[in-house]
């Protein structure tokens, strides 16, 4: 399988990001945060709640420009980015299919989406409005939207949080299926170590706020070998390398 995505990897070098509240209290969210994600690689940003993971993604998505430092998104091929947010963020007044198509660039607007909808189990739901979907289905629709755009890089912010474990596990497998069909450079934020070990090629471990990189954990093993036995071995070796984490 040929990894698609950028020629240049995702390179992040954020010197500092500080929030100033209305009362004048300042919170330093990120400090000296630097890492890279190689092209076609699925990386996880693992860190405790409130350490600055969402803040990092918002900076990379261009939604927050008030920081010092720099980053570089993959270039070459499409220069599009896609995001699966912490909430599904579907337009409630548009159907599932309209939500997906609206996110597509003009050149892809009319492309066939049957395969993607089928894979994600959304085939019968294309004409439903988001209010008619369960949270699990809404998250699938958000995944469909992200993958349909054929992005150069994909950002995911705890896409499986606040789901029951069975639904979350099913969605993780669906994510792997669509991602494997077109291995896009991806950066996923999570505080769930098991999820990170199951999905990623490499885990970027973050420290408590202000977030910075504690270290990397590479999972070289192909994903289809990661059965429960192997997972517990991975878990053990991760905990040996990062004793305090998770």
């Amino acid at each position, binding site marked *: 399988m040929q990894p698609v995505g950028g020629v240049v990897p995702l390179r992040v070098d954020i010197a500092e990001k500080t929030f100033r509240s209305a009362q004048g209290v300042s919170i330093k969210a990120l400090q000296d945060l630097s890492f890279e994600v190689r092209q076609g690689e699925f990386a996880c940003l693992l860190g405790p709640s409130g350490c600055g993971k969402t803040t990092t993604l918002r900076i990379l*998505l*261009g*939604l927050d420009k008030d920081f010092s430092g720099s980053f570089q998104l993959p270039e070459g091929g499409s220069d*599009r*980015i*896609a*995001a699966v*947010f912490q*909430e599904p*963020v579907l*337009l*409630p*007044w*548009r*159907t599932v*299919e*309209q939500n997906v*198509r*609206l*996110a597509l*660039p003009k050149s892809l*607007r*009319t492309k066939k989406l049957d395969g993607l909808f089928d894979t994600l189990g959304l085939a019968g739901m*294309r*004409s439903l*409005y988001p*209010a*008619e979907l369960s949270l699990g289905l809404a998250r699938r629709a958000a995944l469909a*939207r992200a993958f349909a*755009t054929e992005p150069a890089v994909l950002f995911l912010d705890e896409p499986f949080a606040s789901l029951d474990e069975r639904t979350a596990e099913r969605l993780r497998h669906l994510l792997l299926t669509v991602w494997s069909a077109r291995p896009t450079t991806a950066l996923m934020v999570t505080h769930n170590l098991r999820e990170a070990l199951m999905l990623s090629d490499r885990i970027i471990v973050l420290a408590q706020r202000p977030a910075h990189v504690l270290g990397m954990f590479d999972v070289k093993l192909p994903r289809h070998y990661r059965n429960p036995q192997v997972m517990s071995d991975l878990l053990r070796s991760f905990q040996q390398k990062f004793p305090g984490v998770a």
Partner: protein
Amino acid sequence: MSAPDIGDRPPGAAVGMSSQSGLAAALTPVLTVAASLFGLGLLWGLAANAWPSRAFPGPGLVWQVLLAEAANGDLFYHLGATLGRVAAAYVVAMVAGSVIGVLLGSHRRADRFFSPWVVLFLNIPALVVIVLAYIWFGLNEAAAIGAVAVNKIPNVVVTMREGARALDPSYAEMAAVYRFGLLDRIRHVLLPQLQPYLAAASRSGIALIWKIVLVVELLGRSNGVGFQIYLYFQLFDVAAILAYTLAFVAVMLVIELFLVQPVERHATRWRRRPA
């Protein structure tokens, strides 16, 4: 934009009365309104009979005048002129008011600066605006329509400013990440969120605008329902005044029932969930 499946399609679910009792339930309000209006007409007829006077014609006479004015075409000519002004002033007021309101609602500093202006314009009497518009811009159509719109714009601004303050930033951020074009942003992200506010501004707008249009016509136009009413006022012809008034109220009711409400139902169809 010609992509499939992104337009506004009618809802998939059939909307209709499923049973006899459903039909009866739907008809009851209509019948109630009809009975209520009939009662009012009856009361009017009885009163006109009890106190016969040229200044207080009964419904029969008013109806005859209405038919006569309709037959010679005057009624439709003047109704048409007034409706045209209502429509033009409505469009100008809604567009200008929405743009200003959304800008103020999304820029806090501009809002703080311009807020007193809005309050000022809200409190200028309609009559003053009309008279000044005619003095400054002449007795012409643009001045007439502009004066009506200026009277309505501050209300629209206030309503749409509320709407803009209530916008959910996560939709705008999603649209930014996926690089929605400007038109898509307005049509699929902004307007649907503003829809309840647009509907509210619209509703109070039409009612206010048509009343002001009559004054504008009375003061400086040579056609329209307002002009006719002024004419028949000088002739002391109350039956004709009432005929024109009722005809115009009827037209506005029809617009409300067959244009405003269906549009609103269509715009909010996504809120309905199948049972």
